[in-house]
């Protein structure tokens, strides 16, 4: 009775994934197993690199390499789509269970990875065809509203949007970033304060409310501020969001 071919496959995959150079299986040249190890790691590695350009840039190259090796060895990616490798990498970082023994990443690394992934995720969201932008931004003050579906709100402990070659580290500061598909189809983001983020979250959870209905509970939640000031601030935010196409008119589905 010969060995189950599926066990041969599982063994082969395990030897391809493992971090340190393994013994080749019986009858296979080490050099040829090495070809698979290199080709397959490099392929996944390329997708991680292109998904996280800023995190990659701000991480020591050898450390970045070890991190990707660990990802390839231990994280089981379930999706057949290459574009989902980035999502799996964020999950790998967030779970953290396989990071043992590696140099710790900066405290903002996971936030940054999540933000970089969010940009990719928004880019590939389904096309929204039933939410045309408002005819004029001012219309936002009069009718029932909805949050454009091609947007995602990210909440972070660090201002990760500032990170880059010129800004290699940041201090903690609660940060709300709204990533959205712009009117020209490219992906953009806006930084929001906590109150604005709350207003837009309310809108996304209960579409169909008008400006008044959105702003009233805010005044109640902010008793220290004059109602008029809250109303004005809320109105300005909605106008600004309408101009960007983030807040749109509500249509009964």
């Amino acid at each position, binding site marked *: 009775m010969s060995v189950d071919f599926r066990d*041969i*496959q599982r063994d082969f*995959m395990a030897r391809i994934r493992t971090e340190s150079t393994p013994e080749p299986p019986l009858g296979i040249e080490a050099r040829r197993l090495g070809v698979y190890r290199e080709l397959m790691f490099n392929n996944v590695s390329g997708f991680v690199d292109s998904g996280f350009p800023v995190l990659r840039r701000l991480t020591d190259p050898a450390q970045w390499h070890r991190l990707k090796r660990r990802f390839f060895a231990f*994280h089981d*990616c379930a999706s057949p*789509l290459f574009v989902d490798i980035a999502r799996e990498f964020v999950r790998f970082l967030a779970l953290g269970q396989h990071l043992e023994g590696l140099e710790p990443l900066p405290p903002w690394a996971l936030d940054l990875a999540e933000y970089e992934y969010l940009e990719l995720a928004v880019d*590939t969201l389904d096309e929204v065809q039933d939410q045309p932008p408002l005819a004029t931004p001012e219309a936002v003050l009069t009718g029932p509203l909805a949050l454009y579906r091609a947007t995602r709100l990210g909440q972070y402990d660090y201002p990760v949007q500032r990170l880059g070659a010129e800004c290699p580290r940041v201090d903690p500061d609660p940060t709300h970033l709204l990533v959205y598909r712009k009117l020209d189809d490219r992906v953009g983001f806006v930084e929001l304060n906590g109150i604005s983020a709350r207003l837009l979250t309310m809108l996304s959870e209960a579409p169909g409310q008008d400006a008044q209905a959105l702003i009233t509970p805010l005044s109640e939640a902010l008793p220290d501020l004059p109602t008029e000031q809250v109303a004005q601030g809320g109105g300005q935010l909605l106008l600004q969001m309408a101009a960007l196409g983030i807040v749109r008119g509500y249509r009964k589905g």
Partner: protein
Amino acid sequence: MIQGAGIGLRREMVAELAEGAIPDAVGFMEVAPENWLKVSPRLRRQFSEIAERCPIVCHGLSLSIGAPAPLDEGFVCQVKGFLDTHDIEIYSEHLSYCSGNAHLYDLMPIPFTEAAVAHVVERVKRVQEILERPLVLENVSYYAAPGAEMTELEFLNAVLDEADCELLLDVNNVYVNSVNHGYDPVAFMAALPTHRIRYLHIAGHHREAEDLIIDTHGADVIDPVWALLDSAYQLHGVHPTLLERDFNLPPMAQLLTEVDQIVSIQRRFDQNRSVAAGRASA
């Protein structure tokens, strides 16, 4: 129906092709559905525009037809949706696997055994049932043959025959494997069933060592592979043939010189055939 010579449609080319003309020499284009199932609306629109003007074939990467894990039927349904949306007739995949309990995103060699043949055959049938199309399987390049109990040729022919599916004959892979595993590439091709061949692939590769070639699709096609394309036409007749180029992508004009070369070889065979036919009727 596809005919003539084709190229792989890469994202880098899309903007240029969506706005401009599709070069005359390009008879069809090939895409990996995995790269187009989840894209920005802009890319999706550009793709649709191209697909309306040029026949498209799908050449998948992640089906993992020989995997030790269950077939991902949800994914097969997604592919079917894509094929139907864009009116794509041909879906080819690799006689290979790229996943077990996890996706590894590249091709590994299925152990050449009777049990693996039976496993693959059952899965091919299921895929064909869901897709309502024949599955076209490609002979893949491989660098090692773990667990082999028969030859690659025996394995390939057994799968094609028992699954009753079609063949994407990759001429470059035949060449790569003939060097990597020491066999006669022409004899290998001669033993393949002509009636199952749907289309051909040709590509460049990287020579790592005297006895080891890596199938990179990152270089120009070399002369021995062109000669093998000639042999393939001689043995099995002229079939639509696609140039694969995935890395070190040259400008379109340069890519087209290789496409032209495919077309000119095809013409030569067609002319010879019509001359022979003329002689026969004279």
